[in-house]
């Protein structure tokens, strides 16, 4: 198998060369690695590479095919670039993304204030909604000018992680 993975600005090709039990030989771009790799539990890998014992946590993030990867002292966000991702990337390059004008909750919380309703004109930077979690309040602002299309939450609602809170129509409509 071969896979394109994106880490910051780097797009790396990882290719399986050989696999025998725990021993996996792969190339990462031009470098060949032979590692002893075992999945300890859902999120945890134990890797032995040239004798070094490395523990790596691989957790899928909110975004599909994005992984938060941690070793003992560094963190990486790695994206799997497959055909679907490439298609999405191309679409995003084609025009302004609809995502810019969508406010989603970055964490579970309670909606304590909603400043706008569908049909309102908003300017960039205008406060839209206030979310409270763990005794801290966070205000969310419009990313750019537009018209509020949808506010699927109301004051007092409890929202989940990554839940849609406000949609603003900019120049183009969501497809």
């Amino acid at each position, binding site marked *: *198998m071969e*896979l394109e*993975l994106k*880490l910051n600005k*780097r797009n*790396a090709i*990882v290719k*399986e060369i050989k696999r025998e039990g725990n021993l*996996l030989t*792969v190339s*990462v771009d031009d*470098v060949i*690695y032979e*590692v002893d*790799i075992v*999945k300890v*539990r*859902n*999120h*945890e*890998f134990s*890797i032995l*590479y040239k004798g070094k014992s*490395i523990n*790596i*946590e*691989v*957790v*899928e993030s909110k975004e*599909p*095919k994005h*992984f938060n*990867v941690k*070793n*003992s*002292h*560094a*963190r*990486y966000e*790695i994206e*799997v670039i*497959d055909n*679907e991702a490439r298609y999405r990337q191309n679409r995003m390059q084609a025009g302004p993304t609809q995502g810019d004008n969508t406010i989603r909750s*970055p*964490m*579970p*919380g*309670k909606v304590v204030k909603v400043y706008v309703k569908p049909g309102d004109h908003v300017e960039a930077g205008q406060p839209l909604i206030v979310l*409270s*979690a*763990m*005794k*801290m309040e*966070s205000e969310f602002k419009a990313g750019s000018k537009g018209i509020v299309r949808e506010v699927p939450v109301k004051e007092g609602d*409890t929202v989940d*992680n990554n839940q849609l809170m406000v949609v603003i129509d900019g120049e183009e409509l969501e497809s």
Partner: protein
Amino acid sequence: MEQKPIKKVLIANRGEIAVRIMRTCREMGIKTVAIFSDADRLSMHVKYADEAYNIGAAPSSESYLNMDKVLATAKKSGADAIHPGYGFLSENATFSRRCRESGITFIGPSPESIETMGDKISARKKMISAGVPVVPGTTDKVTNEAEAIRQIKEIGLPVMIKASAGGGGRGMRLVHKDSEVTHLLRAARSEAKTAFGDDAVYIEKYVDSPHHVEFQVLSDRHGNTVHLFERECSVQRRHQKVVEETPSPLLTPEVRAKMGACAVAAANACNYEGAGTIEFIMDDQLNFYFLEMNTRLQVEHPITELVVGVDLVKEQIRIAEGKALTIKQDELTQNGHAIECRIIAEDTDNNFMPNPGTITHITEPLGLGVRCDGYVYEGYTIPIHYDSLISKLIVWGPTREEAIERMSRALAEYKIVGVKTTIRFLERIMENTDFRSGKYNTHFIEKNLAFLLADNQENANEEDIALIATFAEYLFRLEDSKKTTVASTGKKETNWKRQLRKFTSRI
């Protein structure tokens, strides 16, 4: 004086502190009663207690802060005492009074002590009369310019001018130089006038590069008060303590003795009973000033326990029973060094946003000199309604250096998956040279923020290894998905399975 043994304690709190108090009760053979809100049925303190009662809806105001319900539950369960923990009702004089009126022992100070120390002005006056240094400044408001300038001269620069009616930073000016005095004073008064319709001001000495050093005290009702030395709490972010240690790397034995005497005097001045903390602000020249008294157990009390060898909750209970302290001041010593790190559910990379959610995995650090006071467990969902403190990691070592090394080791062992935490941020604090040298004040985090947020990248290979692990994750999932076909799905499907299905359906 009357002694009243405590047999059953209601803990009017939740989270790690409720569990910590119950641990000591269990060791003392005292029964424990938990109270819980609708959001906390599966919280650790409910499972840990001997008895547990629902007392209302998730918001604290409808449950943990509802005095009627708390007191009614104490009656119903036959609890003879209430331990308030910290936060919630712990520094509420009315609650202390209502406990007394209901014939329930409040494990904490009298309402009178709480009232005296809870009001900043009255506390300041008490301290002055007890001979405890307070931040130099005007005791009453100043309404004319000449008097203000005279006071500023007397206090000495730098000073902070504060609008008497003020708040939120308006009408406030920091004065560093003689040449600025008149100009800034007028600016402050004018802004105060506009904002609050009142140009009266207070003037206070401004403590530059301040250190936050606090002293633990214990007082019984027989007139005995001891202090259990200091805690250095200058590692703060937005006035929230992040790391605490004892002994303070700053104090000399002479200053320590002077501050300890002041702490005892402060407690005695308000007829204190129980465990309390005198907070001081200190400058680089080791001048110290009374800041406030916390009339309750502190979050960071465990570092004192490790270095002094005393279980503070046990002492609180003994004092509340009316017993005399068995601890003598001259028998107390500081043995070794202890550090506490607060493990908080927040996203340090995203402006320290709180990060509630479900713990999908937790591995707590173990071994010599490591204590972990937590309350979350695998599968537990941290509610959005309460504090973001997940646990406190406390280490002891014979020296400060060894304690820091041990803390680094323990933080590296600590694994929490499912919510973002401050663990890595704390690891960086332990690696920071300012922290390691012990030369830091309350500006520490602000000053070192870039360092604290950065990763400690070792070499390029590691990036490739991370890529390989991700590749393997993708590969293994793909293989699993080929082996399994889920025909229909039910509620019992594990998260892992559900994610797997969502994931593979996208491939």
